[in-house]
């Protein structure tokens, strides 16, 4: 789940329902309802955003724990959820018993980590092995307090449009496409070279807008906008500057469709062939589904998902469940968070929401099942994402990471998309905005 998942998928809910039934049928008992929460009637509130796919899991948990009632709130986008959470932290009250926190603003939350319960007191160490190491570490603050259980992660593959590839004389089989981009050695050089070729042949753009490409280029670096010590890492960062120039050149050569992110002309840009490739972290598959539906497209539009990514493995996004200290039922809330992030539940969540789980066992299950995703030309998206998750490294996210991503580089890259600046001017614009919005703030 990421900062901006704006559409909820209804159909997915039924899938989860079936999964929930299957679980009941196998007589599986979860580890909820222990003595800790007692028999006292408790109402637990939980705030999520975008598509979390939890609705059926709530019902299941209530059935397992008759004394617990769950009152969920779902906020449309991660950005709004961030505003909601920040406002309530600032006000000192109003947070629900469980709050979903997104990776992008986890850095800011870490600055006030004492406002959240240390889950070590509620058995975090016992279940630590569920998660990928780096995911568990991300939810741990510098003092070693665990303030969040990971829900999903954002391993990224490459979405491409088969019919458009065909028109340009490129291969359309997803394995051939993976080879075309270089397989394990896929690099941004190859990506932009193919883009230049495609643009020349068809006169159309290669990617939707430069912002997403930039996000994944930065997420791929060992250290992003901040060094692991928490210092700003942009000015004088030649590696980052080189990547920026590379992207700028391609964009100025017409490889970007200059689309508005999260809108894409009401999804129409996914249908009318405006661009042929797309950055696809796990949760983005759900976003594309929503966009295709509102843009009038379907499986026949020809989107597909390849097991390859330029520049190697990369993670973008992912969320955590945290329990604020203001909660009146800390113990019960911690229990529910642990239950919701249990591999078994994560598999169901993944089926309902289309995102990718953060626990090892859940990933293995998805990889084994390799369920074909109808909308993506029957690609086994879960299995591909499990493959893409290999070698992913966690990058340190600083307190202003989302500001830098959206308000510093956003406008600078937009100038390039609109062909209104040279690469140097755009980079300078980013540095100026950084000075104004982050350093002088």
């Amino acid at each position, binding site marked *: 789940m990421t900062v901006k998942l704006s559409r909820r998928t209804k159909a997915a809910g039924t899938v989860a329902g079936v999964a929930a039934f299957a679980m009941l049928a196998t007589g599986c008992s979860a580890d909820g309802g222990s003595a800790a929460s007692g028999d006292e009637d408790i109402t637990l509130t939980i705030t999520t955003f975008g598509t979390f796919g939890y609705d059926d899991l709530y019902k299941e948990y209530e059935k397992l724990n008759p004394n617990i009632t769950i009152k969920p709130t779902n906020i449309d986008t991660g950005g709004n959820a961030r505003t909601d959470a920040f406002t309530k932290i600032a006000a000192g009250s109003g947070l629900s018993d469980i709050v979903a926190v997104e990776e992008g603003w986890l850095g800011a939350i870490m600055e006030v980590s004492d406002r959240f319960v240390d889950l070590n007191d509620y058995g975090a160490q016992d279940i630590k092995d569920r998660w990928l190491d780096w995911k568990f570490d991300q939810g741990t603050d510098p003092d070693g307090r665990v303030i969040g259980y990971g829900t999903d992660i954002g391993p990224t593959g490459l979405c491409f449009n088969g019919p458009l590839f065909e028109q340009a004389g490129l291969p359309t089989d997803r394995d051939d496409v993976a080879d075309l981009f270089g397989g394990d050695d896929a690099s941004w050089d190859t990506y932009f070279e193919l883009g230049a070729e495609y643009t020349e042949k068809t006169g159309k753009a290669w990617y939707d807008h430069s912002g997403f490409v930039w996000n994944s280029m930065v997420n791929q670096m060992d250290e992003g906008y901040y060094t692991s010590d928490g210092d700003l890492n942009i000015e004088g960062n030649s590696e980052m500057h080189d990547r920026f120039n590379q992207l700028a050149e391609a964009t100025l050569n017409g490889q970007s469709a200059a689309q508005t992110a999260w809108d894409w002309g009401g999804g129409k840009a996914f249908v009318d062939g405006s661009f042929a490739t797309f950055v696809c972290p796990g949760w983005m598959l759900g976003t594309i589904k929503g966009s295709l539906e509102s843009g009038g497209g379907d499986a026949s539009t020809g989107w597909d998902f390849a097991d390859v990514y330029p520049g190697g493995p990369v993670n973008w996004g992912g969320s955590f469940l945290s329990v604020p200290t203001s909660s009146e039922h800390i113990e019960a809330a911690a229990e529910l968070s642990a239950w919701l992030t249990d591999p078994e539940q994560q598999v169901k969540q993944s089926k309902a929401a289309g995102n990718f789980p953060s626990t090892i066992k859940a990933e293995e299950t998805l990889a084994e099942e390799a369920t074909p995703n109808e909308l993506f030309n029957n690609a086994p998206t879960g299995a591909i994402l499990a493959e893409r998750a290999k070698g992913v490294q966690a990058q340190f996210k600083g307190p202003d990471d989302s500001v830098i991503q959206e308000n510093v580089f956003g406008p600078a890259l937009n100038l390039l998309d609109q062909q209104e600046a040279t690469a140097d001017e755009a980079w300078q614009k980013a540095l100026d905005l950084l000075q*104004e919005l982050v350093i002088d703030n």
Partner: protein
Amino acid sequence: MTATLTPGKTTPSHSSSPRTPDRAERRRHWLSRLDVKASPYAYVAPFFIVFGLVGLFPLIYTFVVSLYDWDLLKGQGDFVGIDNFVSVLQDEFFWNSLFNTFSIFVLSSIPQLIAATFIAAILDQNIRSKTFWRMSILLPYVVTPAAVALIFSNMFSEDYGLINNMLQNFGLDAIGWKTDTLPSHIAIATMVNWRWTGYNALILLAAMQSVPRDVHESAALDGAGMLRRFFSITLPSIRPTMVFVIITATIGGLQIFVEPRMFDAATAGGSQRQFQTTVLYLWEMAFFRQNFGEASAIAWLLFLIIVGIGLINFLLSRSIATAETKVSTTRRQRRLAAYRNKEVSR
């Protein structure tokens, strides 16, 4: 209102306590005087208590916050005095947001008020199914601004929008409704106008209805045409309402937030801040940059600007009113003088 109640209270007590007339009289007197003096304040107090709690306190507290280095999440920091105000006043984005606010305000308020006045004038005529027409113009006001913004941002979409499609069908160039400054202001002003014109028209219509019909009739008998009557009778008669409408439109216009926020939901007022209004900038400062101190300073500066413009409006309308009384008093004095002169000469 209260004074009329006191006799009712005092009359029965006259008969009930005849033994100590002096003390009772004095007590009654004191009570009734207290009643007359204090009761009105008690009656209006609820509003002021509520206002103090939800209006004045936040205002003062915001000022306190603006004097500190205050992080949204971490809370109060060091006392910095007016530093926040200084840095806001030196901030190019603040001035950009003020420019955008005023530009959108001018583009919306002026056409809106002109249109509202004429719509009201037309509805003031004796037309069939009046109520239907009057209710219909209020319809846009019922729709929430968020929904309006959704629909309009679709229409004004650059690549797929209805308006650009139509322009291109006529062989014209597509307009950058979301990337160019002026077009984006026009687009947002359109949303504001769509929603508020009918509302203002209805208020002006109510004022027009109270203009005595016989004034119109006698003017008509004297040969004044429709336009002449509108400019010479209707407009001057509704001046106080006009001032009210202008002031509320000003306050609303300077606080505009939802329309530009929803017009491009991914950014806070355009990728290059083309249509970022001051309240939108305040929002970005508080909840995105988490600088609560500076956000409070922006809030206070905006408050001062609105008060300032309100004062100008007030002075303007008062000077118009006093100019009128001046004219009439000088006339009266002249006539009086002439009369006295006649008396003397006689």
